[in-house]
Structure formats: C-alpha cells, structure tokens
C-alpha cells in the first residue's frame, strides 16, 4: 500500500474519531442541564422570563439533536460559538490562549528531548556504573514526583526564598521596567517550563536509556568498532538512531497530550493558557469553550499520532504499511 493511500485512510478514521468524541462531550454537557438555569437559578431578581430569553439567545431552547448539528455546521464553517463567560468568539480565545500554552510546552519538550538524549547516552555507555545508577534514580524520582509538587517546590525556592523568578502569570509590570516585553515574557516562562521539562526529561531518559542499552548489545555496534569508527560516532551514528524510534512515539504522545498536562502546570503558575481556560470553563459551565477546547485536544492527539506513524515509516525501513 502506498503511503498516500495510507495517510488518506488514516485521515478518514481520524475524522470519525473526532466526531465521536464531539458527540460524547456534547451528550455529557447536556446531561448536566441548561447552563443558564444552573448559573442563574439562585440569583435574586432573576425571573424565569429572563432565563428563557437568555436561553433562547444561546439557542438552548432547541432540542439537543438540532443544537448539535447547528454547532457542528458552525464548526465546519470555522465558528466555535461565543463564550458565555467572556462573551468573545471561542475560536479567537482558543488561538490566543493556545499560544500561551505553546509558549511553555514546546520549549519544555525540546529542552527535555536534548537533555534526555545526552543524559541517556552518558548513562547507557556506562551501564551499571555509579553515573548510570545516579541517572536511573534521578529519572525514577522525577517520574514519580507529582507535577504540582515539583511546581510548588520551584516556586518556594526560586520565587519565595531566592526571589529570582516570578511565581505566577505570563506578564507583569516589570515589562515596563525592563523596557522589553520579550525578556519579561522569558522570565515568566522559566519556572513553568522547568516544571514540565523536569517530568518529560525523566520519562524520556528512562526510555532512551533502556533502548540504548539494548541496541549497544547488538553485534553491529561491535562491527562498527571493528571497522575503525571512533567510539563517539559508533554511539551516535549507530546506537542513538536505532534507539530513538520508541522515543519518537513517546514524543508524539507528549505533543498530543500537551493540553492534557497543561491544566496542572497552568493552575500551579496561574498561566493564562488553554489548560487554565479549560478548568475555568468547566467550573463555569462555559459549554462553547468546553466543546471547542475538547475538539482542539482531540484533533491535536489524533494529528500527533498520525504524524508519529508517518515519521516511523520514514525512519524505519522495516515497518510495512498495512
């Protein structure tokens, strides 16, 4: 099967998957009830007429099935609806808040990838040494500590005690003082990025190290040495490339799950990103935002998986498409 046909088929599955998720989320939100009623019911001075009028404004008087297809049709045309709480178009909100999330997630993934490869190679080429033992213990610790705990420790040490980095937010009035929004933005990014990178590095290191140890046992490594290749190039040209494939899968999952880990990080650091928005939207039953963001999460996960599978085929000639 050609790669184009494979991609087309996978894309069709992906669309079906995204539709399925949208139906489930829509059903769940509707099971809770009319958000306008829930939000306004106990407020003094609100009449049933007012509630009905607001419900009509948001099309909430229509039967769920109709509302689903109206929502779907609008999404297809690029309209995610309007946030009940912010009264802004959801599409624009997802974009601006999404940029803030990317700002900490992408650097964290890239940093942890480079760090993990370097650390894992160092450990794997010295298997069972003290260095290896130390790396393994550190990585296990890093993987088992809850993210929010690491975040709070970071805040305690670097914000509260040392006062170097800000403990919350993405921007501050320091922006004016420093004369540059860029430096201010980077300054705010440090702690959230560190928290994310800490966990990612730990997981990637464990994965990469065990793959490296496995690959280094193969005879083609010794064959490369026998042909006179310098040790560094034996390790990087032969071993790292072969050990990288399972890491690539995990990397794909990390990209896809970006928005899954975002709520914790962004709550700890009050970071104005999609994770923070998502938690707020759920608490306030801002259903257009919940729907829109769930769609974004699903699409990202599906795309990341698809891209990973394609990258797999390109990197590993042994993988056949079927």
């Amino acid at each position, binding site marked *: 099967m050609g790669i184009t046909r494979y991609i087309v088929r996978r894309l069709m599955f992906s669309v079906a998957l995204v539709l399925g998720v949208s139906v489930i989320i829509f059903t769940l939100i509707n099971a809770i009830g009319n958000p306008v009623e829930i939000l306004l019911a106990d407020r003094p001075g609100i009449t049933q007429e007012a509630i009905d009028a607001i419900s009509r404004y948001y099309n909430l008087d229509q039967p769920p099935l109709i509302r689903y297809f109206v929502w779907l049709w609008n999404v297809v045309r690029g309209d995610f609806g309007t946030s009940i709480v912010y009264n802004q178009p959801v599409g624009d909100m997802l974009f601006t808040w999404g940029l803030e999330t990317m700002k900490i997630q992408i650097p964290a993934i890239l940093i942890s990838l480079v760090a993990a490869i370097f650390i894992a190679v160092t450990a794997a080429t010295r298997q069972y040494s003290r260095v290896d033992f130390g790396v393994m213990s550190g990585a296990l610790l890093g993987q088992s500590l809850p993210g929010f705990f690491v975040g709070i420790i970071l805040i305690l040490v670097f914000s509260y005690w040392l006062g170097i980095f800000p403990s919350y937010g993405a921007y501050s009035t320091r922006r004016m003082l420093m004369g540059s929004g860029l430096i201010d933005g980077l300054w705010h990014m440090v702690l959230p990025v560190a928290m994310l990178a800490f966990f990612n590095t730990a997981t990637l290191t464990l994965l990469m190290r065990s793959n490296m140890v496995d690959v280094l046992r193969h005879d*083609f490594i*010794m*064959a490369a040495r*026998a*042909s*006179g290749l310098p040790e560094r190039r034996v390790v990087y040209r032969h071993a790292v490339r*072969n050990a990288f494939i399972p890491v690539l899968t995990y990397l794909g999952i990390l990209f896809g799950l970006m928005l899954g880990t975002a709520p914790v990080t962004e709550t700890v650091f009050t970071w104005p990103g999609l994770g923070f928005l998502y938690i707020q939207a759920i608490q306030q039953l801002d259903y257009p935002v919940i729907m829109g963001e769930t769609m974004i999460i699903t699409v990202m996960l599906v795309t990341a998986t698809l891209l990973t599978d394609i990258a797999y085929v390109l990197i590993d000639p042994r993988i056949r498409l079927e």
Partner: protein
Amino acid sequence: MTADVVPAGERDLIRVEHLRKLYPVRRRGVFRSRQTGEIRAVDDISFTIRRGETLGLVGESGCGKTTTARAMLHLIEPTSGSAFFGDVDVLEVFAEGRREDTLKIRRRMQYVFQDPYLSLNPRWTIAQTLLEPFRVHRHVPEADWHRRLVELLHLVGLEEYHAWRYPHEFSGGQRQRVGIARALAVEPEFVICDEPVSSLDVSVRAQILNLLVELQAKLRLTYLYISHDLSSVRFVSNRVAVMYLGKIVEMAAVDELFSHPMHHYSYALLTAIPVPDPDVPAGRSVLVGEVPSAMRIPQGCRFHPRCPAATEVCRTVEPPLAPAGGDRLLACHHPR
C-alpha cells in the same frame, strides 16, 4: 607446501602470547560492591597462525573461543597478554590509543560475525554499511567508491541492485555475504570468522564455506575460523586448536587431529560427530558430567573431572601445552 623454506618465526602472521580475559564477579551491597571471584574466560593462551593458513578454533559453547577472538582485535579489552600482527603488538597499539595506528590495525584485521541478523544495522542500506569503512579509512578515492562497492558485491556473489536494499530484505545466507563483504571492504590480510555459518540454514552453509575458501585463495587471506561444528572446521582448516574452559588443550594439523586425537577431550568431541549412516551404531558419548563453571576451574588438569583416564597427577598438576611429536602441541598427562 613451500612454507618449509621460510624460518619458523617469519611464516607466522599472528602470534598470540599469554592472552587472558578475566571477568570479576561482584556481590552488590547497598553502598558498595566487593569482588567475590572471577570468571576466567580466556586463561593464558598462546598460539600462532601462519600466513595464508586457516586455524580452526573448536570447543563447546562458552569455552572462550569468541572471547579470544574479540580480545585479539581489542573489540573487548583483554586483561593481559599480547597479540602480534607481524611484529606489531596490536593490544599495545590500542593501549597507546594513537588513532592513525589503531586505524592501520583495523584495516589489516577484520571480523565476520556469527549472526548476520544482529551484525548489520537494520536501518542502513547495504551500500551505507559497506561504504562506512571507506569513509573511515579513506583508502579508496571517493570517485571510485561506487566501482569498489560493486566489485565487493560481486566478490561475495551479490549483485549491484542489492546495494540499495535493507538487511531485512535478505535471506540469512545473503546477509552473511554482506557481513563478509564488509570485512573485506578494507582489504584486510587477516580475518576472524566467528561461527560464520552456525546461524544459517544447513542448505546454505556449504555455499558460505565455499565462498570463504574461494576468497582466501583469491585474496591470499589468513583466517581464524571459530566453530563448534567439527565438520565445517575440517573442511576449511589447515590446523586446529581445541579449547576447553579457556585454555587450548591440543593443537595439530587438521588430518592428524581428526585421524588421531591425543587429548581425551578432542577424542570425545570427535566421537560426538554424528555419522550420516544408519548402519553405523551411534557412538556413546565418552564425556561424563557437565562443563564446570569458568568461575570454579578444577585444580590440576581442568578436564580431569570428566576424563576417563584421569589419575592422581591429573588432579594436582596442570599439564603444560607442550610439543607432542611433529607439529602437534598437547596438554595431557596420559595421552591416548
């Protein structure tokens, strides 16, 4: 043979002297580990290989054949000893570690691995694998790479179009041809063949063995051929060394050894060869017991617990490897 006119020393291409490889055995504590013993994988062995000959190295699995071979090329670091190529001590060169010197060694001594499924990088095409030595050694001008690559493939019985394929697209026999081509890419004089056919189907073993013999004649190669399969050793070797628990116990010309083994272990190995004739009664194994652990090598002659002829002296005195008539070396108190 014209070898007789050459003085004994000069016809030797390879001379291994007192090669040892010990692996420490440690017991791990919480904070530190302490050494509780050692595995004597290769226990002080010496031998020579003459220019242009094939020395067969036989013995049961785990007796140290592969360790010996890999230590000779410094693919694993030996504990002590030397391995001379001509009059250069290979192991000393690697200990000094000057890159241009070690590269010279790598060009002259090559290795063919046992399992062609593990010894080729699965993500590289055959061309990439075969051209890597060219990239390292620069012994062929880049303009000639393609021509040399095709020559190499033809030399081992493959075609030009095979160059663009990946290892998984080949059969075991073809992969081993690639493994041989990789070893030959640097135009070596000495090649260690480490059980090159034992992971292949019986039907293709003969082809690979014939190829090795052909190449030896064509390129004037010297081989160390390692195997536990005695029939293939008999086919390719001029002389044979029998190894038991990290030591050579007998070494002789192939015909002498096969027709008249003097060490009881050599005899036991030879009688274990199945004869493809149903009328010949199956020989009963003369070996009793298991190979002892290389961590606890018996006192005296290391073969004595399993030897039918063992006496008191075998239990206490280790027999040295000494001349035993003609070209033969033997380490036994009571030869057959």
